[in-house]
């Protein structure tokens, strides 16, 4: 069954005001195109979950879509701060933002508990740290077998998870290579899932290499093809991370007026991500094109 949709329709149908939304992807495969569409459709009161909110959530929070942020590392990787988020937290400017924070391992295990239908996940972390005192959801418990103390984190079950993949079938079987982040856990944990991909491929392509399927169509509600949909994040083998953009974001997000005009120019005034790609210009994409480094092939065997 084809689940192909436009980004506009997928977001309109599956992302609702007040939802908990996870756009996952650790540095790699962060679907900026979906974040921009959520901004364009002016969703409100979202709880945004991500291990690393990154520039995409700084944009979304700067645009006013969120009331709360669940995270484990809040920064612009390798560059510095997320100023829209900091203004909300430090000065309640223009409104307060509720924070709920974990460590990376805690966040990953929250998704794992959500995906596996468990009431909590035990981890060896948080000992003698102030993090549990800042977040009462992180609770010390003892093993029923030998009394070992561990900390429990609660399941995270997003209303919607949005993941980007290099390729997917129109049914939503999604194949990813390169950094896997917690894409799989976040997708299985969610009530609704949007898979965005660089390429829609025939089922035969996926069947030739089933080990590479990270998310099966069975948990997917919509499939959106959006080439360059991760920019300035990246898709391994398709386009490089646009580090220059991440560096430029520092000055854009520092000044709310500059941020607003950036949002106007690159989000509100555009109809779609295809327009963003065109506006960015062929030279930009050419500069982000990686060289070729092919994997070898394996023999799955023919047993007919």
């Amino acid at each position, binding site marked *: 069954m084809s689940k192909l949709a436009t980004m506009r329709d997928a977001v309109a149908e599956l992302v609702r005001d007040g939802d908990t939304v996870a756009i996952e992807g*650790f*540095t*790699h495969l962060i679907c900026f195109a979906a974040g921009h569409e959520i901004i364009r459709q002016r969703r409100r009161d979202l709880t945004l979950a991500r*291990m*690393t909110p990154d520039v995409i959530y700084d944009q979304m929070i700067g645009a006013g879509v969120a009331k709360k942020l669940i*995270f*484990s*590392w*809040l*920064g612009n*990787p*390798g*560059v510095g701060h997320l100023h829209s*988020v*900091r203004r909300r*937290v*430090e000065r309640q400017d223009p409104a307060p933002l509720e924070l709920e*924070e*974990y*460590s*990376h*391992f805690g966040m*990953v*295990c929250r998704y*794992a508990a959500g995906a596996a239908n468990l009431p909590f996940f035990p*981890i*060896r*972390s*948080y*000992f*003698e*740290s*102030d*993090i549990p005192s*800042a977040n009462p959801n992180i609770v010390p418990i003892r093993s029923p077998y030998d009394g070992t103390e561990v900390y429990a984190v609660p399941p995270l079950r997003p209303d919607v998870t949005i993941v980007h993949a290099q390729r997917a079938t129109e049914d939503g079987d999604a194949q990813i*290579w*390169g*950094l*896997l*982040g*917690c894409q*799989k*856990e976040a997708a299985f944990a969610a009530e609704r899932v949007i898979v965005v991909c660089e390429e829609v491929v025939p089922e035969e392509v996926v069947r030739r290499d089933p080990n590479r399927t990270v998310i099966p169509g069975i948990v997917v509600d919509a499939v959106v093809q959006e080439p360059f949909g991760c920019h300035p994040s*990246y898709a*391994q083998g398709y386009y*490089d*991370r646009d*580090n220059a953009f*991440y560096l430029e974001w520092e000055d854009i997000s520092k000044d709310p007026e500059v941020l607003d005009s950036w949002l106007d120019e690159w989000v509100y005034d555009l109809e779609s991500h295809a327009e963003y790609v065109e506006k960015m210009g062929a030279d930009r994409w050419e500069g982000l094109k*990686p060289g070729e*480094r092919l994997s070898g092939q394996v023999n799955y065997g023919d047993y007919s």
Partner: protein
Amino acid sequence: MSENGYSKNEIMIAASARMLAGERNCFVGVGLPNIVCNLAQRTSAPDLQLVYESGVFGARPARLPLSIGDPTLVSGSTAVTSMFELFAFYLQAGLIDAAFLGGAQIDRFGNLNTTVIGDYASPKVRLPGSGGACEIAIHARKVLVIMRQAQRSFVEKLHFRTSPGHSGDPEHDRSRGWFGSGPTSVVTDLGTYGFDDASGEMTLLTLHPGVTLEQVRENMGWGPKLSAELGETRPPTDDELRLIREELDPQGVYTS
């Protein structure tokens, strides 16, 4: 650049790389730690496997990565794992020998703050938070901290303890049963420190050439404990400087 022909960052990098001598599985961060690990791999620790919390084991970066999720870390690595596997099977299970942490604040027992300056509920500065730091401090067998030294960062009392260090009671530290015990070494722009076995307290081991004890005292919030064999940090060798400048950071992004 100092009159001796190397920068502060270069002596920090060289001193840190020597501390990785003989180590194997090392959690790498971006910036200086990335250069330190790549230098160590070419000098003091030829068997060093570069591990990134983004889920990469055995990386061979072909360029200097801006982030720990750079695609160059994936291409040519020996394994790419989900983050669950990386944290659960590699870190929590005790396979990580060494790791790097930093922070806005460190105290005399190596506890680190990367969360807030000021009050948690209404912070003056909201910092990034833990990331993987809290569990790295607990599970990595050795933890190296590379930080510039200043009164505002080497503090008597942290505003928030993100990642645990030593408690001040070594018996308690041993009974915790962790693979690690927070930071084992601190390298600053002024000197290098270890942690005293008897008290768990940060102890000045060497001063960088030309640095005085007075400068050290002026740039920390407590009176530093001094090693009985307080010495001088060996300056970077010509070979180390050549590797840093020609191979690892030819544009001088992190080292000039």
